[in-house]
């Protein structure tokens, strides 16, 4: 879960990382006031959850408070990679001598945190690593031993940093490593970490990602930073349909009917589980079908939950039919899902036989499930029909 720059910096500030004077502007008057307080040249930066702000023109420099106010108005409407501007950070402009990069993330292959450091900061670190590998160091940290300061020193020294620069940089990187561990981050990054003309180092831009599964552990921090529980911080904000999907899942603890994602097609999908949904969604698209949604059912959802999900999908304008499909199930029960989707159709005022294009969930309690489907005239198939073939039958019915 990505933090905005101002949230990342608020977290850094709590742990004593050096930052420039700044304030968060929600109006042009805010921008003017903050610039006046800083009393010097400032930079205004759009707060968005994506990179590429500079290119999009969402970062501007101002010499006077009036100029800052004008820039505020120019920045706010700019959408960067589909992300809207939440606010504008007004920050003291720094006299930079050199830019460094410091980051901590997971090395999935080694299954350890890795400290990445470069004396070529300010640009995309992956590019630097590709073109100038000798300017990037990688230092792995243990997850069992407490993080020691020498790791940070080694990380910087490997790129040739020495003297006073090394003794000033190392404690900053060391604190970044501590923050990474303490808050279950998947990324803690300072880019650039700038050396100013007077020899001091400051964090000019920072980026923090908190692991979704660790959110419950850090509720207090999130509340203090003003991050609300419903903020998913995905690549795009959730639609109303998706918010209602999350409510269906949260409304009943029995099983999963989650991760509802809206698409613009006419075939509603009640699919599962994690891997099965990915496979089935691909299959529907490969047959030329247009899904209205993505979702994942599993973990043996209750009849009530499967019914609520069915009703939600059918409530979406333009949904003509449903495809109910899963991989061979062992935990989820075929009969329970069958009851749920049939009930969902009827409660939506639709005939299950006409609405459900195909029901392909073989496995646990399938005989009982098939009896229900037969009674309501729903077309179903067992494990001899592949997931791909079942998706094809559903798409065929849409075209008929």
């Amino acid at each position, binding site marked *: 879960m990505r933090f905005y720059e101002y949230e990342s910096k608020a977290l850094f500030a709590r742990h004593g990382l050096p930052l420039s004077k700044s304030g968060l502007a929600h109006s042009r008057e805010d921008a003017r006031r903050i610039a006046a307080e800083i009393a010097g040249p400032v930079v205004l930066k759009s707060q968005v959850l994506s990179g590429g702000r500079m290119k999009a023109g969402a970062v501007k420099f101002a010499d006077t408070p009036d100029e800052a106010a004008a820039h505020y108005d120019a920045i706010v409407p700019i959408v960067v990679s589909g992300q809207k501007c939440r606010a504008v950070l007004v920050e003291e402009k720094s006299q930079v001598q050199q830019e460094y990069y410091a980051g901590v993330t*997971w090395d999935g292959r080694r299954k350890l945190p890795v400290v990445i450091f470069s004396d070529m900061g300010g640009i995309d670190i992956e590019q630097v690593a590709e073109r100038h590998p000798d300017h990037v160091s990688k230092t792995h940290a243990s997850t*069992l031993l407490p993080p020691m300061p020498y790791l940070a020193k080694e990380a910087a020294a490997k790129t040739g940093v020495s003297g006073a620069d090394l003794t000033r940089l190392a404690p900053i990187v060391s604190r970044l490593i501590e923050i990474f561990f303490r808050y279950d981050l998947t990324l803690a990054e300072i880019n650039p970490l700038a050396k100013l003309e007077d020899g001091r180092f400051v964090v000019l831009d920072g980026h923090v990602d908190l692991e979704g599964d660790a959110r419950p552990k850090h509720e207090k921090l999130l509340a203090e930073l003003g991050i609300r529980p419903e903020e998913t911080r995905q690549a795009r904000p959730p639609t109303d349909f998706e918010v209602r999907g999350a409510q269906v899942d949260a409304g009943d603890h029995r099983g999963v009917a989650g991760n509802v994602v809206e698409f613009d097609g006419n075939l509603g999908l009640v699919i599962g589980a994690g891997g099965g949904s990915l496979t089935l969604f691909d299959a529907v698209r490969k047959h030329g079908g247009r899904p209205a949604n993505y979702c994942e059912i599993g973990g043996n959802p209750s009849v009530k939950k499967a019914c609520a999900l069915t009703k939600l999908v059918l409530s979406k304008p333009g949904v003509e039919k449903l495809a109910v499909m899963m991989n061979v199930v062992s935990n989820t029960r075929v009969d329970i899902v069958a009851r749920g989707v049939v009930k969902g159709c009827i409660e939506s005022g639709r005939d299950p036989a006409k609405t459900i294009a195909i029901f392909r969930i073989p496995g646990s309690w399938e005989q009982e499930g098939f009896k229900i489907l037969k009674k309501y005239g729903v077309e179903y198939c067992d494990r001899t029909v592949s997931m791909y073939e079942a998706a094809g039958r559903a798409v065929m019915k849409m075209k008929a």
Partner: protein
Amino acid sequence: MSILIHKDTTVIIQGITGREAVNMTREGLNYGTKIVGGVTPGRAGRDVYGVPVYDCVRDITSKTRVDGSIVTVPAAFTRDAVFEAIENGIKLVVVVTERIPRGEVAQMVELAQLRGARIIGPNCLGILSPDEAKMGGLGGPAADARKAFTKGPIGVMSRSGGMTTEICNTLTAAGLGQSTAVSIGGDAIIGSTYAELMPLFEADPETKAIAIYSEPGGRMEAELADWVREHRSRLPIVAFMAGRFMDEMPGMRFGHAGTIVEGKADTTADKIERMRAAGIAVAERIEEIPALIRQELGKRGA
């Protein structure tokens, strides 16, 4: 033969009195697994389908040989349970629990490496060696498991628990049984990756080919491709790649926790290219896997 587990493997279940664990115990016993004990703190003296419950792992390991443990306790207690198993000398730990923060998983994995133990999972359905034993919920009730899984020459590894059963069922229907099927888990960091399990299949004379299920996100497929190239494996591998639509939707999370496209290396297109370059056949559909396996085996004159 099989890998990881067989008829004589002795197993305990940590968290045995939980709702899902009770099912898992009954299913495991019915399948023939030797479940020698269970642990739930404060519940010592009870039994679950005849399996005695203890307060501590050491209460069992001090009395009898324990080869493996299934950990199915809430996420907040999982690290503790895994440490307890490993520090009491258990060498195979299957972690079923999902939603464990990555940092804690990495700690379990690091400890396992230190002690020479192996972790499968987290966020997995476990291991099944047909007609031998199963650890975890994989395949469900014994009768259902016997329908989908049959003994034979194919090693199966899958990032999805449900798709492990789907693939084995497809293999079974085509007359290809399995040596062992491993649901390796859907998280970004897991105890045993494809490449880390390959040497075990490689050493198992009964295994003749490998089928894998993979997804976007992570470097596991690239790691497997490198492994295959470096070790000139005797085993042909057929992979199925799900979630191809995700390539067009970077930053969105679908499926498992480890399934997200953050960079080019996470895309299915990149993974497919790397695997094919290493000689791994990639199936477009699940039902193509058996024919591709036979074709690959034919090429090698097996």
